[in-house]
């Protein structure tokens, strides 16, 4: 019998705001424990939550970017449960009237090779709601200590429909969400810093069966690759169990990335009764068209749209776009230059995707701190196109420009890279090369085209690399008749 997996993801994404979701207390990562706290964050007696408008803007933006409906009205509910990382022992969340309804995430699966665009599809979302993050428990030999710095960071929960079927789709789903959030400036989605967290619900059923199989909730998925690996392992495990005729019991498992396997956490979901009820401390939120319009106007062109446009408008190869587009800064850099010289877009794209990225990474420089402006890069491309310098020399000029921030012309001038000879001189060097190298000449004349390269090399040497190889080749052929 053939089996298929059905996967749903619950993705938590922190919203990057200056202050916390329900108080003016500063929000951040990497501070000394319990320094980003105030009476609200610590749940002191008498403290009250007050909604942070920036967090609302953030989730509305996320919702619009992920094609959700933003209803006119949403409200806040308390989810009651005891846990030491929760200051009030209830979480303020949205139970039945979330701020974002429905929606979908466009994903791209891996293509056959890196040069080929993979297939795209839409993964349906159930909802996105806003809630407060909790603190962090640190366990030691004798004690456990709680750090409330993370508590009350604005947190979105993006809930997908059970609409995925493989680890690869889940990987693509998270990658797409991450890129969209980064593009919109909503979150940096750094999973190591806990800015994005994912749990997966996985079930397996015989192909053709309508009902879902028993659901396994998979936790401890600490990276996007971890999500993929964990899901793939779990699908394999469940399928084998079913093939052996065993039944799957609904439970929570955890992914052990070091061992590369999943293990049982809780046999049966503790019958948690969260006793949701509307939070009497917070007013419901009304969202009007003006608000939606304002946020919509702040959403930039989204990654897949940009990629399609780069391919169509600038005729970039897919492989270059798949390097540029995931990085909004890099894309903007490319386009700043390409917009001024659309015909040179491919050359610009190549420089950005190869040379610029390499230099940035070798010098550990952020694009924002890069000395080489997009306008300067364009000057380099144009110097090459005019035939002032060769592509070979341009490689070195690029590095020089990257290090100093000079224009291409300035580097060419300063280093004396401009040809200091005329076409007649080149012709003379060609003749000299022919005279001095009878062997390759003979080979060429007897039909070995490749022998010409030896002569070309000689001429380039004489010109100290400055001669245009195409011109030299033409001249050599002409002289050799």
């Amino acid at each position, binding site marked *: 019998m053939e089996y298929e997996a059905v996967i749903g993801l619950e993705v938590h994404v922190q919203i990057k705001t200056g202050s916390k979701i329900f108080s003016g207390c500063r929000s951040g990562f990497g501070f000394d424990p319990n320094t980003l706290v105030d009476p609200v964050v610590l749940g*002191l007696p*008498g403290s009250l*939550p007050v909604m942070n408008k920036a967090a609302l803007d953030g989730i509305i933006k996320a919702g619009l970017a992920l094609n959700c409906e933003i209803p006119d009205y949403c409200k806040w509910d308390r989810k009651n449960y*005891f846990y030491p990382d929760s200051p009030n022992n*209830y979480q303020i969340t949205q139970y039945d009237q979330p701020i974002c309804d429905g929606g979908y995430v466009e994903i791209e699966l891996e293509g056959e090779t890196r040069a080929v665009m993979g297939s795209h599809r839409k993964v349906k979302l159930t909802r996105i709601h806003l809630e407060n993050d909790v603190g962090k428990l640190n366990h030691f030999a004798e004690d456990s200590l709680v750090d409330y710095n993370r508590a009350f960071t604005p947190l979105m929960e993006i809930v997908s429909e059970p609409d995925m079927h493989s680890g690869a789709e889940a990987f693509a789903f998270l990658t797409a969400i991450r890129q969209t959030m980064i593009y919109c400036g909503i979150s940096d989605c750094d999973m190591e810093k806990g800015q994005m967290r994912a749990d997966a619900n996985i079930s397996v059923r015989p192909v053709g069966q309508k009902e879902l199989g028993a659901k396994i909730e998979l936790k401890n998925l600490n990276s996007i690759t971890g999500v993929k690996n964990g899901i793939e392992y779990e699908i394999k495990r469940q399928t084998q169990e079913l093939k052996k005729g065993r039944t799957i019991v609904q439970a929570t498992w955890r992914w052990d990335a070091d061992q590369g396997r999943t293990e049982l956490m809780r046999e049966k979901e503790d019958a948690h009764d969260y*006793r949701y009820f509307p939070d*009497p401390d917070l007013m419901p939120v009304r969202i009007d068209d003006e608000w939606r319009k304002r946020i919509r106007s702040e959403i930039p062109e989204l990654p897949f749209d940009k990629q399609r446009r780069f391919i169509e408008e600038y005729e970039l190869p897919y492989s270059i776009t798949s390097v540029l587009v995931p990085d909004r800064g890099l894309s903007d850099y490319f386009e700043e230059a390409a917009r001024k010289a659309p015909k040179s877009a491919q050359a610009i794209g190549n420089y950005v995707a190869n040379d610029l990225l390499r230099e940035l990474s070798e010098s550990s420089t952020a694009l924002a701190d890069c000395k080489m402006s997009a306008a300067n890069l364009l000057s380099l491309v144009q110097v090459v196109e005019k035939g002032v310098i060769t592509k070979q020399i341009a490689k070195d000029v690029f590095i020089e420009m990257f290090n100093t921030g000079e224009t291409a012309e300035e580097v060419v001038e300063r280093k004396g890279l401009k040809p200091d000879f005329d076409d007649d001189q080149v012709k003379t060097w060609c003749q000299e090369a022919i005279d001095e190298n009878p062997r390759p000449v003979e080979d060429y004349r007897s039909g070995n085209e490749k022998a010409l390269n030896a002569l070309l090399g000689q001429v380039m040497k004489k010109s100290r690399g400055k001669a245009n190889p195409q011109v030299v080749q033409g001249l050599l052929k002409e002289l050799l008749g």
Partner: protein
Amino acid sequence: MSDALYYKSARELGELLEKGELSSVELTRSVVERTKAVEDRVKAFNSFDEDDALSQAAESDARRGNGESLGPLDGIPVGIKDVLAVKDQPLTCSSKILADFISPYDATCIQNLKQSGAILWGRLNMDEFAMGSSTENSGTKVTGNPWNLECIPGGSSGGSAAAVSAGEAVVSLGSDTGGSIRQPASHCGIVGLKPTYGRVSRYGLAAFASSLDQVGPMGRTTWDVAALLQSISGHDVHDSTSYKIEVPDYLDSIEQLKGKKWTIGLPKEYFESASDTASIGPVNEAIAFYKSIGCEFQEVSLPHTEYAVATYYIVATAEASSNLARYDGIRYTHRAEKFDAKDSVDIYCQSRAEGFGNEVKRRVLLGTYVLSSGYYDAYYLKAQKARTLIRRDFEAVFQDVDALLTPTAPGPAFKRGAHTGDPLSMYLSDIYTLSANLAGIPGLSVPCGYADGLPVGLQLLGKPFKEEELLAIGNEFESAHSFKDEHPEL
């Protein structure tokens, strides 16, 4: 009758301070001495800090000396119910679970009082977490009614009422979730006002039931209560449920509204049940007085009154079960010495079992039950619907009348222990007050006489944000009677 400084009204004291005939230090010392003299019998305070009060008083005197008085409350000692956060002061809510907690911040109403120059005086006893009607549920001590120390002072703001009644504070702050300002005010023969929900910020008020709680003033006169209300009212960015609406000049309004012929409603459901209570005599005399000055009375109906007590105890306990979850033995509350270190749930269980009293436990259990899945619709949701109907009852009658007049409580203060074995009968002592909390409207209790030798109050209920009308109506009665000058023998 007493000429003592500590029994003068805030208004008189303010005038003396203003004229330079009295210093705040003298006044504060008088209140402190009075407190020391009677406190071992009244037991109104959980704690007080004499030096702190006197140093605040010295600062007030210095301000006045420089011509920088902050207004009518500058230099006046205000007692604070131990449910409001005052920076660097204990905040116990009369609970063992907060026995060692010192607040690192000020409630907004406390900030406002500081800006009015008031002397913050002591931490006043209450029913634990404001749950009760007699202050017998306090985890710290049992407060006596200054009129008869064997009787309860009412609750939950029993300490706030007793202190003002006994001259241990000039005015005080209380909180009212179902009658917790008005009922003890009635029992102790003072004035108490529950403002409209949203009039006063709740930031810094340890929550019992968030949608019902309101901080309010208590004092010996309507003028004093109005001055205190003026200081603490207004919108607060730290409380989303505080209302953005202009605060009138209450002291001025009392004068402006003097002599107005009010139309006053008498809710028949209240009077049907009150007819055989001890309060009815003095209340009927008050009605006769108002008629004599030209006010018009109408019988009105609040048909959903019979559901108020049940509705209240579902909504209040549901919210309380969640609000009190933060007292867990993890951060700042009492932690049990012995617990199973391998089981984090055991810290909660042991600490809360030791830290909370019986009434708090009863209400947390009740609230947890009514929110449980499978019961939510039958209890909490239904209670919310009933609450809407109760609020509409009031909206409807306020089309026809300016205010409602009722007894504040079914009778005068009862003997200590009279209802402790029967929580339900205790819950009924708030039968006339808790509807105002469900509807969010303001309510005022003003002394109107005695029953069995103990004070009895009349309650005036008003339109949302029309506290000034209640104060003006109450002031008419107060001005024509001498109850404000009658004090218990201690």
